[in-house]
């Protein structure tokens, strides 16, 4: 005697639920994490389009009468255009210096085994892990001694040197993926080490250079402590550094720094979008193997 099977088997639903549960939980967790990230950003954007009084009435409330006035005020009152220009100078030249300083050591560490290889590496990693605060006072002294304190060049040099260790690691990792045979082929064709570096390795390392440069650019753009300590002249301040001073001055105006922050993040967003195409370009297809 056999009963006809029911159309929807209760056990099957249970089984399906058991398999789906971890997925649902993971998705919920991911959404929670995303909210933690996006929350402050949303709050910043929201604050930047409210009049200050509205913010003081309800910091988390949705804007009732959105306005672009804070943007206009910040841009004009603080000469934000100049500040952005400063930021651009520091980030562009500072990361160029960091990448430039890192190229040759990265090549050397990826290809040859220089004596003391491991110690060089240990030093590089130390450089990476050193908190900014620990080097503030020595760097301050050094910049004064070099007459570079409160100058653009001084801050650029600091950023370049401070960014170099991570650039060496990024570029070295990238250069080790360039197949050795390509270099040997160039060697057989009569290229010197320098020619191999400039004509083969550098062009092939461009995606790595773009990645490193972009990361360093962002790091300098949002850097705060160095700019605050090594600069006094407000005319050469980067955008992010200036905002701090500003919130002291207009202590009750929350919408203005928010607007400034939003403006200051726009170039970063554009840069990331531009660099992304490079980063994922897959330049090696066809060099070796089928």
């Amino acid at each position, binding site marked *: 005697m056999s009963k006809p099977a029911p159309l929807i088997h209760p056990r099957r639903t249970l089984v399906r639920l058991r398999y789906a549960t971890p997925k649902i939980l993971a998705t919920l967790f991911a959404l929670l994490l995303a909210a933690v990230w996006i929350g402050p950003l949303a709050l910043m954007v929201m604050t930047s389009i409210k009049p200050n009084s509205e913010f003081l009435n309800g910091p988390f409330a949705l804007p009732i009468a959105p306005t672009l006035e804070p943007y206009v005020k910040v841009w004009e009152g603080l000469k934000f255009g100049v500040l952005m220009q400063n930021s651009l100078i520091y980030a562009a030249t500072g990361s160029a210096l960091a990448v430039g300083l890192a190229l040759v050591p990265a090549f050397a560490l990826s290809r040859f085994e220089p004596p003391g290889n491991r110690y060089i590496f240990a030093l590089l990693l130390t450089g990476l892990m050193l908190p900014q605060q620990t080097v503030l006072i020595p760097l301050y002294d050094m910049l004064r001694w070099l007459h570079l304190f409160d100058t653009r060049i001084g801050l650029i040099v600091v950023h370049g040197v401070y960014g170099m260790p991570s650039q060496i690691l990024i570029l070295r990792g990238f250069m080790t993926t360039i197949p050795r045979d390509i270099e040997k*082929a160039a060697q*057989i064709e009569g290229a010197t080490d320098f020619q191999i570096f400039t004509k083969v390795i550098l062009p092939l390392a461009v995606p790595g250079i773009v990645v490193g440069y972009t990361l360093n650019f962002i790091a300098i753009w949002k850097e705060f402590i160095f700019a605050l300590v090594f600069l006094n002249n407000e005319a050469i301040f980067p955008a992010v550094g200036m905002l701090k001073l500003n919130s002291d001055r207009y202590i009750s105006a929350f919408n203005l720094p928010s607007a400034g922050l939003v403006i200051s993040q726009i170039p970063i967003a554009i840069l990331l979008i531009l660099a992304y195409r490079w980063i994922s370009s897959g330049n*090696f297809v066809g060099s070796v193997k089928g």
Partner: protein
Amino acid sequence: MANVSLVDVEKRFGAHVVIPRLNLEIADGSFVVLVGPSGCGKTTTLNMIAGLDPITAGQLLIGGRDVTDMPPKDRDIAMVFQSYALFPHMSVFDNIAFGMKIRRLAKSEIDSQVHSVADRLRIGSLLDRLPKALSGGQRQRVALARALVRRPGVFLMDEPLSNLDAKLGIEARSFLAKMHHEIGVTTVYVTHDQSEAMTMGDTIVVMKDGLIQQSAPPLVVYNKPANTFVAGFIGSPAMNFLGLSIADSKLVDPDNGFAIAIPDRLRGALNGYEKPKVVLGVRPEALRPAPRSADSSGAPLLSIDVAQHLGHETLLDASSGPHRIVARVGASDDSRIGEKRPFLFDAERMHLFDQDTGANLALSPI
């Protein structure tokens, strides 16, 4: 054009000896294939000739010049890599012209040389492309063109066909052989594929553990292998080896029904050989089941384990006790699996090897 001499060449990485002491004479215009299993030192040897791996001790002469300590560019060589090693950021034209640009040749000179070599290799229409837009066979031709355009005295090739699929590989094989025939440049070719070695080389150099096992023309290596390693490595399916005792001018294993008469021409080789056993080597084509009609008493009986029908021929796997053999027989063979059949050994094509050293007893004095 140049000959290559390796004189007492040694290669060590730290304390690890890769090539103990290598002596090899490569004649001008010849096509020499270095072949052996991976780790046998064939690529290291090639890299030493190229100048990519420094020689620890000994001397390397190319065209009579001592080039032991010279950089690759001064050695009058060109190399084709297994991976092709094309410069991915350069067009086909720039890949081929790279060396000439480094040497700062005139633009018109570079232009005409690149075009002439590209036309010869039938890649003239691809000069503007990047390597990633080429097929495997085309990439290989670009790599060849880059090497050819140097007009080297010696061509070095490191497994240039192993990245091509089987059909393309066989095409490229005859293409390379034809090219060598036309331009006649001394070529040193490394491969792990014994059939590539057999079909392409004037001379095959079989290597194992950094030592040359045999260096001879393909058919000599095939028909008179120096030892069991060479005999087993060259030829597919591999040569069959049977460990047998010697008794009354016969090779015997009474427990398994073996009693094979030693051919007259091999008797002399066994003079003074006093070890209890000898290794009999027979290639699969020198073995066949006796015709069913013939009287075959005395022939060893082997039971058929597997019959592999390849269409144009059949491979029979057969065994008796510990002895296993593969026989290459006609496509019409009607052996059934499990059946026991007497097998005939071709006396003209039997080899005897030393039980311990593996040396071919007919070639080496004991």
